[in-house]
């Protein structure tokens, strides 16, 4: 069995809303090994977003322990978690969250700027390589407002790759894209998976589950389904099957 990247042990997360306590997660346990491509699904209110925030070290559990790459997260303070995110996690958001009027290269460099180990030249080289990996080597100096949605999401993925994270965390990464572009992005994720990257894809769209190697379904703060997907569909095939676009 390959190395476990994520280990959740009976995670609970409660929020206080007025006088009531909302139990967003009611004891979730699972672990994710290196190289898995996991989709976490659930309807709204299932605890999906809370799970994402916890996995992304943006939040800490009320109870239970979360190990990311064998590091216990729940006892870490804000600054330690910032550094942990910077070194180990790559985020991809639904709305790209690129900096406005900033070139693709500079956007991708951003996580490295918060890591003092890199010099300016190293940052540039790594960012160029990451953009190359998402197929945007000809768009290095385009500004974010000069790119299409698909290109912007590719830049965002490059930004998530640039720090060589142990985990890529995607939140509805295809939610803002049209079908064709969404497939293109899924193709990219599948390629990254084949290269051995660990990816967690949080979505409410059940169709996307077919492209991942493991499906976790949440409902009311609990895991109700956790299956390995033996029959991964190729996003590339789906893309090719789409009617050709008229330019």
């Amino acid at each position: 069995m390959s190395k476990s990247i994520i280990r959740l042990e009976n995670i609970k997360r409660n929020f206080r809303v007025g006088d009531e306590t909302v139990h967003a997660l009611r004891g979730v346990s699972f672990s994710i090994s290196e190289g898995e491509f996991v989709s976490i699904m659930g309807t709204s209110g299932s605890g999906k977003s809370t799970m994402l925030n916890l996995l992304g070290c943006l939040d800490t559990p009320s109870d239970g322990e979360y190990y990311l790459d064998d590091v216990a997260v729940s006892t870490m303070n804000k600054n330690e978690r910032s550094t942990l995110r910077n070194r180990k996690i790559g985020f991809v958001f639904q709305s790209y969250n690129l900096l406005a009027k900033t070139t693709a290269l500079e956007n991708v460099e951003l996580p490295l700027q918060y890591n003092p180990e890199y010099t300016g030249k190293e940052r540039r080289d790594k960012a160029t390589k990451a953009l190359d990996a998402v197929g945007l080597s000809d768009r290095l100096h385009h500004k974010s407002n000069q790119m299409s949605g698909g290109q912007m999401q590719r830049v965002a993925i490059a930004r998530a790759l640039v720090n060589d994270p142990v985990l890529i965390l995607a939140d509805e990464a295809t939610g803002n894209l049209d079908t064709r572009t969404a497939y293109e992005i899924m193709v990219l994720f599948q390629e990254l998976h084949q290269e051995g990257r660990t990816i967690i894809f949080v979505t409410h769209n059940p169709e996307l589950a077919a492209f991942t190697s493991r499906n976790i379904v949440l409902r009311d703060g609990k895991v109700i389904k956790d299956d390995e997907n033996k029959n991964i569909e190729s996003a590339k095939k789906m893309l090719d099957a789409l009617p050709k676009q008229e330019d």
Partner: protein
Amino acid sequence: MNIGNLIKISLRALSNNKMRAFLTMLGIIIGVASVITMLAIGQGSKKSIQSQISEMGSNMIMIQPGAGMNGGVRTSSDNQQSLKMEDYISLRDKATYIAACSPSVSSGGQFIYGGNNYPASISGVTPEYLTIRKLNIDDGNVFSRQQVAAAAKVCLVGKTITKNLFPNGENPIGKVIRFNKIPFTIIGTIKEKGFNTMGMDQDNIVLAPYTTIQKRVLAITYIQGLYASALSEAVTDKATVEIETILRENHKLKANDDDDFNVRSQKELSSMLTSTTDILTILLACIAGISLLVGGIGIMNIMYVSVTERTREIGLRMAIGAKGRDILAQFMIEAIIISFTGGIIGVLFGMGASFLVKLAISWPISIQPYSVILSFVVCTVIGVFFGWYPAKKAAQMDPIEALRYE
């Protein structure tokens, strides 16, 4: 994140909103420029007053007979005869802090030359008087010691006198003018000095040997006053004390007797006048300072807008590893860049405006290095002070909330 990167990021953010950054800066520019200009005007007035006082002789000391008592009746100092020739001689010979000393006696009257006449007063002095009062000879010569000893009927005249007695521009040297029926030969003219700060015409002056005035005009043996100059402005106080000691000794005053003379230096006059301009300067600087404060509030306002507008950016930066202090530094530097750049432009504008004031209304100005440094310090402090709160707000954001912000 290192400071170079932070500055780069801040410059990018500001250049994304050039107009807004400029308008924010404008508050600081106007504030700093007005502080510089107002201080330059205030200091300029002060300097010009000081230089006019030193024109009159900054280390000059005046000694007058004191208002005394005569059988229970206070008498005006003009009628006092407490200063004698011996006082002049002992000051001249004994005082160590005094560079020059001259007695003074004067009389008012009408000067007549041909068909022209002009009212003025004639002062009887020694040649040292010219050094003490910083008067210079324009043409001719100062009367000599021999002429003083001989009570010669010679005089030196100022511009106002020559203008009025010789309206056709004749050379006054060698001409004989009459003062109260006594003929005086003009042997020199005094260089023009113009009006002083108090509006007194410094060229309305006629000088003659004091002996001549004592013997031939007033028929007195006492002197009406003494003028002395201290060795330097710094020892004026010591010289004053020394003069008082010598005079008290001469006048045989007991320890608890009041002085029967007054010793006054220019310092009192100078400090009185400069304190007036100091108040003016402070007032002007306060008004200018208020506009700087308003500029600072402008920065705070814009920084708030900027932080709110860039909530998602803040969220993203935090998600990918920015710590609270990175975000704090980013916004602080932005605020400091605005205020510092505004400060530099403001200083340049202020200097320009000051010179404009000088050119346009020929007001004396003086730009003090300290006012420039002060403005810079105040600007940076304003940047830090007014940038702090919005930046703190940004740094304390919850990345989850910030990323969700619409």
